[in-house]
């Protein structure tokens, strides 16, 4: 029971993260591509809870920035010109879920002030907004590649386990082949022969396809094992005796037996695939500019000056840790639950 509660809590946390990611347009104050050429590598905005007289205000405010005379790249706050942070404001237009044209944002400040919660990057783009929009690419490419991987793995594993014989032999040799390769090398090799310069959307789909195809072997083998023992169950044999077709038997009686393994595998694979996307984009083989992904945002750190001087540029890497931690805990909770269930039997 304890594991069940843990699983539910973790699922809710992860669901929340994905929900925020889906509604990135609403939660981010600016568009991901909007540049402020005057403010490259600006450190996170200071948010004031006191006004110029020093008394506490309910509404936090952000002050205008003025360049320090004689020192380009350094800014001072103009304490006299402060603008309150407002909630539910209208700003840049965006498409919610790619469907509805909207311009409502969770928070923002009235121009000419600007709010940069996590600073700006080299083009003066808001890192916080890019982080949210980038999560759409990074989180969902991991999720969708996992679905693809599991679908291919489940299909082939089930067919191999159900029919046996030469089909089984061929599929199993294929999985050995895929498992024999260091998977990042395989991923690279596959990516190597696809066009390099493509639109972000196409790159996103391509990444999902490549990552998903590379990883089918391990779930495939596991599913085959389950089906191999599962098809000997009395009720499966009975259904077969009553003339159930192969497809019916697999869909109705064998697939449900694999759900546990599929879910556990998903929790294990998703972080791995998110990391694969981040890695590829980091190296310039994934989703390209101006569209943000956590990988290509981290790529800025390849420049020595950025690595050393601008700590907020590490944000996409830092947010990876709690996400991966949640998935990791989820996977181990699921495994513990499965182990407990078999012990009870």
């Amino acid at each position, binding site marked *: 029971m304890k594991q069940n509660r843990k699983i539910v809590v973790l699922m809710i946390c992860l669901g929340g993260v994905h929900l925020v990611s889906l509604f990135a347009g609403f939660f981010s104050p600016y568009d991901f591509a909007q540049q402020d050429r005057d403010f490259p590598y600006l450190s996170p905005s200071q948010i004031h809870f006191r006004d110029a007289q020093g008394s506490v205000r309910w509404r936090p405010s952000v002050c205008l920035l003025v360049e320090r005379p004689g020192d380009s790249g350094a800014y001072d706050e103009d304490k006299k010109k402060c603008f309150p942070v407002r909630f539910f404001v209208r700003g840049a237009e965006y498409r919610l879920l790619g469907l509805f044209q909207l311009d409502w944002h969770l928070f923002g400040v009235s121009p000419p002030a600007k709010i940069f919660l996590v600073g700006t990057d080299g083009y003066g783009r808001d890192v916080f907004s890019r982080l949210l929009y980038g999560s759409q690419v990074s989180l969902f490419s991991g999720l969708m590649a996992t679905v693809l991987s599991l679908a291919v793995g489940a299909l082939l594993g089930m067919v191999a386990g159900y029919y046996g014989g030469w089909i089984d032999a061929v599929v199993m*040799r294929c999985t*050995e*082949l895929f498992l*024999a*390769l*260091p*998977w*990042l*090398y*395989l991923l*690279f*090799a*596959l*990516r*190597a*022969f*696809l*066009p*390099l310069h493509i639109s972000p959307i196409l790159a996103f789909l391509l990444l999902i396809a490549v990552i998903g195809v590379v990883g089918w072997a391990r779930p495939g083998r596991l599913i085959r094992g389950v089906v191999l023992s599962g098809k000997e169950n009395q009720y499966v044999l009975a259904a077969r005796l009553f003339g159930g077709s192969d497809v019916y038997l697999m869909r109705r009686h064998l697939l449900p037996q694999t759900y546990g393994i599929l879910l556990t595998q998903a929790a294990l694979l998703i*972080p791995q695939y998110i*990391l694969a996307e*981040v*890695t590829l984009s*980091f*190296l*310039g*083989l994934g989703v390209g500019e101006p569209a943000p992904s956590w990988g290509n945002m*981290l790529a800025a*750190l*390849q420049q*020595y000056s950025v*690595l*050393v001087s601008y700590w907020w540029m*590490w944000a996409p*890497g*830092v947010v*990876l*840790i*709690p996400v*991966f*931690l949640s998935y*990791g*805990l989820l996977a181990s909770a699921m495994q513990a639950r499965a182990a407990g269930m078999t012990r009870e039997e």
Partner: protein
Amino acid sequence: MRYLGHRLVQSLFLLLGVSVLSFIFVDLAPGSFFDEMRLNPQISSETVAKLRKQYGMDQPLPVRYMRWLKSTLKGELGFSFAYDAPVAPLLRSRARNTLLLTGSATLLGWLIALPLGILSAEKRKGWVDRTGTITTSVMLATPDLLLALGLLLFAARTRWLPVGGMSALDSGGQGVWQQTRSTAVHLVGPVVVLVLGSLPILMRHTRAAMIEALDSPYVRAARAHGVRRWRILFRHALPAAINPLVTLFGLSLGSLLSASLLIEVVMSWPGLGPLLLEAILARDLYVVIGAVMFASLFLVCGTLLGDLLLFVADPRIRTDELV
């Protein structure tokens, strides 16, 4: 020995399969090295066609594959378009560097993980074990990429470690000792990252295997007989727990190879990783295939080594053979 011979033949077929697979992928993929040339107005289309013919790229897939196989048997692994040279010599020094990196990381990782895992299993539910479990969970969630960047930052800030590369620029003319020292200092950074990256998994498995062994009836019996703790741990439990760990050893080499690919690029270690990335960007397909082949060769050798160790460590496998 028949078992090992069987595994050897199997591995050879596996490598052959890998090469066929990479060729099929290459053939399915659009674009080639010569596409870039075609866009260049200074190179006429006849020249491009001639070059294609010269490199044998106008032939159908099976012909190209047989040619590649022939050149591989000669030890060339095909021909690089960008370097205009056989692939194997290009890859050999790079592969040696990668092997140096992953080899030392594997060795160090296991040397640290084994005692920690055993300690954690022995003191199960104690504070050592609890902090260990929490630390490994967090470390498991930290991507290698971040570790590598963090180490680079550390090196740049403190200047205790070199910020990349494999040897100091001025070490070329000096003696062997100087060069070795320079390489060793440069090796520290990438090895630390790889060890930190692989440590949590190795520790977890060691802990799990040891706990299973320590829970078994014969260990309880030994304990009841008053056998000393150290003797139980190392004489009774460890040999029983070693079997899954040896299997993991072969597999860990594979994941380490993947990890080192990225680390090499980030920390500019001149291994297979940077060469592969370069070749991908230049569409130098035989270099890509060559790098993949080298990596899978390492992995296959790793699993073979694992099998060999298992053969030595586990008497059951040896006796199976006699039956």
